[in-house]
């Protein structure tokens, strides 16, 4: 299905590299059946698939080759995330890629190779509260909202101006199930091993943008299912896709997705082109705000358009809405990111 509106802001070379990444996803991201089967269990994802992802170079996709990564860009990471989002792949790739970026920047070389190979699962525990974009650096603070934390082998924490690594087994962890079938982990963490310094905010931005892309992939997948439903379901002796009210709701859904794709791909291109810190962060904020909001609107519209069937757990559209509930706030929700966009992005002089 072509979902492009206009031409994405990528050069032909990049577009080709992005296509290759998308193709490489096909083996793992091939529908939601696997995600469905893993729901509501701990750790909720597959160690085998994790190793496969390592083997494909995904965990270090955007890590420099010098540090053992694939050395690709943000655009490729977003394309991959989008494909994972289509199939609701549960492995914590975005969270682990965040850790890999931080470890690489810090010059860590012990756990990083194992993480990149899919032998370790290192998740970054940067958050001590909901609704924040500011990493917590207090060593004694409880760390919260770590997605799929039950499967982590290590946690990476900003502490003071250092990064600390701690083994998962040394932490006091509780896991709360989420509606997407995954879970969020709350951690009390002992002192860990310092592994160097790294700028955290740019790495969080890349995770936020990848999350936006994951949501985008999910939106397109659930919308495609919904269009199929509209094209086949009959009521009142007619295909329901002939009812203008449903057609227009579908058209509105398409608009949300188109805006989301434009924002996500523009931000990815800008980061890859070396946008200034504020400019890049502002674009990420706009993209994540759009994706967080659009994912909910699209998810809701699709459930509504599918009627009673859309409200059953058996039907896949509901899976996407419940994933959006979890990912819309991850790495910052819409209101938070819009406020940051405004703070970072001065307006042109008045004409």
């Amino acid at each position, binding site marked *: 299905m072509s979902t492009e509106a206009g031409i994405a802001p990528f050069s032909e070379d990049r577009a080709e590299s992005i296509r290759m990444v998308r193709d490489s996803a096909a083996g793992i991201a091939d529908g939601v059946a696997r995600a469905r089967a893993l729901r509501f269990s701990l750790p909720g994802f597959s160690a085998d698939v994790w190793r496969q992802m390592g083997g494909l170079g995904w965990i270090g996709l955007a890590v420099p080759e010098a540090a053992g990564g694939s050395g690709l860009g943000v655009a490729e990471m977003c394309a991959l995330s989008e494909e994972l989002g289509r199939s609701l792949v549960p492995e914590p790739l975005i969270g682990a890629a965040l850790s890999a970026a931080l470890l690489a920047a810090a010059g860590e070389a012990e756990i990083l190779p194992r993480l990149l190979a899919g032998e370790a699962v290192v998740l970054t525990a940067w958050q001590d509260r909901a609704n924040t974009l500011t990493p917590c650096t207090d060593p004694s603070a409880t760390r919260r909202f770590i997605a799929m934390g039950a499967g982590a082998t290590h946690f990476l924490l900003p502490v003071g101006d250092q990064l600390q690594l701690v083994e998962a087994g040394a932490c006091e962890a509780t896991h709360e199930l989420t509606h997407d079938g995954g879970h969020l982990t709350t951690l009390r963490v002992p002192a860990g091993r310092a592994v160097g310094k790294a700028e955290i905010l740019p790495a969080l931005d890349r995770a936020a943008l990848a999350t936006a892309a994951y949501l985008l992939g999910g939106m397109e997948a659930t919308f495609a299912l919904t269009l199929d439903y509209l094209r086949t379901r009959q009521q009142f002796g007619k295909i329901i896709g002939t009812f203008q009210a449903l057609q227009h709701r579908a058209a509105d859904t398409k608009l949300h997705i188109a805006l989301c794709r434009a924002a996500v791909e523009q931000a990815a291109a800008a980061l890859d082109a070396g946008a200034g810190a504020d400019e890049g962060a502002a674009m990420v904020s706009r993209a994540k705000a759009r994706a967080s909001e659009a994912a909910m609107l699209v998810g809701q519209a699709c459930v509504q358009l599918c009627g009673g069937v859309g*409200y059953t757990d058996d039907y896949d559209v509901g899976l996407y809405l419940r994933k959006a509930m979890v990912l819309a706030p991850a790495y910052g929700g819409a209101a938070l990111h819009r406020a940051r966009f405004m703070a970072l992005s001065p307006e042109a002089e008045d004409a």
Partner: protein
Amino acid sequence: MNAIAGVEPQGLDLLDDESFRMVVRRWIEAAYPAELRNPPKRLHWAENRPWYFKLAEKGWLCPGWPLEHGGMGLGPTKQIVFTEELERHGCARCNDHGIIMLGPLVIRYGTEEQKAHFLPKILSGEHVWCQGYSEPNSGSDLASLRTSAIPDGDEYVVNGQKIWTTLAQDANWIFLLVRTDAAAKKQEGISFLLVDMTTPGITVRPIINLEMHDEFCEVFFDNVRVPRANLVGQLNKGWDMAKALLSFERIYLGSPRQSAYALTRLRQLAERMNVWEEPFFASTYARHRCDLEDLKALYGRYVEVLKRGQPLGADVSQLKIIQSELFQRITETMLEVAGENAGLMEPMEGNRNLSPAGQYIQARPSTIYGGTNEIQRNIISKNVLGLP
């Protein structure tokens, strides 16, 4: 004898409305099981039957039924007060299809034998009813239903499938709309049939919904033999009978209770999340609150119609649209406020009041069930606005 125990159903109608309200309130507060207040999900029979029997024992199970059939014989105003008090206290909804749907229908259209047989068994809790209307290909277009009942001797033979049957797994009887004349225009060949769910050939399959709850079921009928005596009203007139009952549903679905409950929860969540100072929140909350109060005002105008014993017009569809979409908006704000807690399956911090995801998901189908909001808007544009 104290004021509560001393008031028998016969005496209730003599009380003024406010005294009646206080009598009801005090009894509910004393009698209702505390652990069942504001249940996060629709309860199963095993959970709510103690409360059912408490109501039954008190004689307060069926507020709208006439006294002679074992009801409370309340007029419209007192029925509304009674419902308001149940809602106010956060009482769980019973398996009430026998009480609010079937009972009134049998009283109005049933034979004397049917009344004598079925009504006492509802009052006693022996029969727990569910409603078999929707079918997989007859949701919005209910009248296109195809489950058939073919006469064969003293019996009908029923074949087909129902869906979205609320709590069918708890029920031992089901009332069905069935097609008894395949040749007639679609509304005209439908009859109303009562079926013992222990009859061979019936299979119930729960549907898990987005809440991971089994509130709805599919019910399959494979050559199910039903005595002809279980037909209610005239043959092929079932559609009109069912439709008359649905007008009750339309005001019920327009009641502000869901939105009011959700708004209270939103306020509690906002306090917990400390968002009153957030620029968007105060104005969003104020908007929800005004929307709710205006809905209450509009609802009150329809309640007044019922109180005066007048029929509800097609415009009552307005209430259902307004209430369900407000309910959804309020719960959408909940998720925004909850931030990273928005996806949690269990209430936050074990506090049942802080369950944004639960409320959000419960609000989703409110624009689908009871006639989708698209259908309601069709009704308004055609039957209220006179558009072609």
